[in-house]
């Protein structure tokens, strides 16, 4: 396997509602990531992630191409998935020797629609989607199953929210942050029992960009590249009633294949849009109590749909660059109740 590293990362402010259009939001983010990378255009490969259903208009990625710099023509592709999978595609391209550098970006505006309802269109179109179960209600099903199986409490979930919001104070791109009291949070009403507002992520309008470079190219532009030592992704059966919702088997498999267990983990950025999912993912990856989870505040404090997974990878890489971590895990998820998961192991040299 070739050495491939993440050499830069940039994010939009993650406002709950950003009235700028997609190109206006994305362009400064791409420009910042490119500038920080120290690599001049053109990139050997460009790949993006987005979803048309967020705004209800087809070809969102085509419009966004204006922000990427596609002239003269570039080698470019797109996945209708979170940008973490666009990063995977770019990593594969470099592994195949077909690129040395890659620009990866993702974006999404959730504010135009009712995101939990929009996400119901991801479900089996014959048996489930016609009932319109929103994503929060389904996550709550999983939460209840997990609470009942593990004997953990809603208080334990609130503690995850409190910790995330506190950590997010240091993140200028967090949608929400601050000091909160567990008791006060637990006094709030349920949104979908057993989940309350603090157990869910604040969806926002956002964009993320990351630059990858291979071997010496990365060493040439970055003092301490965040090397991708392993990356893998897996998917599980679609129907919620077909799998054990209290564990994330695809995360466990992806983590094993990516080599999470090959060394000590300093921190993990886990894409958990719901508090209980952080606990499930932590267990699936075998992360002990000593591992800091989501020092950025995670998706619980900023959830730019379609970019939040890529953001986890960027945030983990940032902590390699600033020396606060030597070995970090980043994770991304897609689909209802953690159906599909990607795990990435990053190391500083």
């Amino acid at each position, binding site marked *: 396997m070739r050495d491939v590293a993440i050499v830069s990362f940039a994010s939009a402010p993650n406002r709950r509602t950003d*009235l700028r259009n997609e190109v*206006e939001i994305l362009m400064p983010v791409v420009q910042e990531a490119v500038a920080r990378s120290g690599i001049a255009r053109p990139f050997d490969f460009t790949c993006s992630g987005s979803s048309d259903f967020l705004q209800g208009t087809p070809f969102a990625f085509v419009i966004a191409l204006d922000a990427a710099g596609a002239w003269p023509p570039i080698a470019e592709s797109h996945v209708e998935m979170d940008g973490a999978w666009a990063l995977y595609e770019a990593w594969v391209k470099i592994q195949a020797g077909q690129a040395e550098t890659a620009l990866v970006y993702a974006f999404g505006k959730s504010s135009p629609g009712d995101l939990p309802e929009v996400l119901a269109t991801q479900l089996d179109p014959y048996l489930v989607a016609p009932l*319109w179960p929103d994503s929060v209600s389904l996550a709550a099903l999983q939460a209840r199953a997990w609470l009942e199986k593990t004997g953990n409490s809603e208080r334990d979930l609130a503690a995850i929210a409190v910790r995330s919001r506190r950590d997010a104070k240091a993140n200028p791109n967090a949608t929400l942050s601050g000091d909160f009291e567990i008791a006060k949070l637990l006094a709030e009403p349920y949104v979908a029992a057993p989940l309350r507002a603090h157990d869910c992520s604040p969806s926002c309008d956002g964009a993320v960009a990351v630059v990858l470079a291979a071997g010496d190219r990365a060493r040439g532009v970055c003092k301490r590249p965040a090397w991708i030592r392993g990356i893998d992704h897996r998917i599980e059966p679609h129907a919620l009633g077909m799998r054990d919702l209290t564990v994330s088997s695809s995360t466990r498999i992806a983590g094993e294949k990516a080599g999470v267990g090959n060394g000590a983990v300093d921190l993990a950025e886990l894409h958990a849009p719901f508090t209980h999912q952080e606990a499930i993912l932590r267990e699936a990856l075998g992360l002990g109590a000593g591992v800091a989870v989501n020092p950025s505040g995670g998706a619980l404090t900023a959830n730019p749909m379609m970019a939040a997974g890529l953001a986890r990878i960027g945030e983990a890489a940032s902590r390699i660059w600033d020396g606060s971590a030597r070995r970090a895990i980043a994770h991304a998820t897609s689909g209802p109740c953690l159906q599909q998961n990607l795990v990435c192991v990053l190391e500083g040299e």
Partner: protein
Amino acid sequence: MSEIVSEEGGILTAPHVLEYPYRRSVGPVLGRFFTELRAGRIVGLRTQQGRVLAPPQEYDPETGAATGSDFVEIGPGGVVTTWSWVVRPRAKQPLDRPFAWALVKLDGADTAMLHAVDAGDLSRMRTGMRVRPRWRAERVGHIHDIECFEPEPQATADNGLGGERQRAGAAGDGGQRARGERQRAGELAMAEEAQKPVTNIKTPMRLEYRYSAGIATSRFLHGIAQGKILGQRCPSCSKVYVPPRGSCPRCAVATEEEVELSDKGTITTYAIVRVPSESIDVPLPFASVHVLLDGADLPMFSVVQECPLDQIRMGMRVQAVWVPREQLGPTLQSIRYFKPIDEPDVPAEKLQETV
């Protein structure tokens, strides 16, 4: 104008509805499931390994193999394996009062299916409770044929005997009701046997959005509302874009410098459209044109009217026809169309660069 709903800090937003009456062919496996639902029965599908999947799946997630056709009647009642409580139901959801979503493992099935449970109150929900379907009186072969599930009258947590009692039709209010229901369902079933199997279902979709035009388009439309056409010049290549997008795609930089343009221009190319399109409200046939406004470097799409179709040509000079001044608004519909004007054609060589 009806299209625009609101404005925040100068940025225009308008409603956008994504709506379609999707009609889906279901294939033989789901077709059988829906046909049975129409008859008031629920069937699962037994895999080669002996596992009963409910609802039936066409392909076994564990082996990838096609699941065949070993259908087996299951339920109608079952056990809640997990649930959540919806505090504020959405309009499209099965019930308009707070309800539970639940995974229900029907009697005889090895997997659980998702549906709504009308328990009345959060306090009535328990993992392990027994529920049974509430059938719609008129069924068509759709997941909605089950309006929702409801607690069985004698439902207690993990009461393993409950199910047996019901199937045996033993004494008790729940048993009698279930018997009566099965009988009614049976009668209906006989009538339905004469009907054709379900092959299609309707699954209409309607999603509402509030679409934001963004900064550049909003500025442009504000200009239109004043009868002006404002383009933007790229600071890098100096080309003028209209309608402006706030960026130059060629140079990948933001554009800010505004340039007021004439509403006169040249047709660079065109097509005569004879087939209706949902997005255009002009009588057929019409000329769809690329118009390069004087001062702009990129043509914009529009239509030409007040000109016999056989006279439309590349290089023809045209001018915008606006709505009356008092009807001007921040929408491109303020420009009704372009019409020919009495100026010499622009020669072909000059058009080559800007198709």
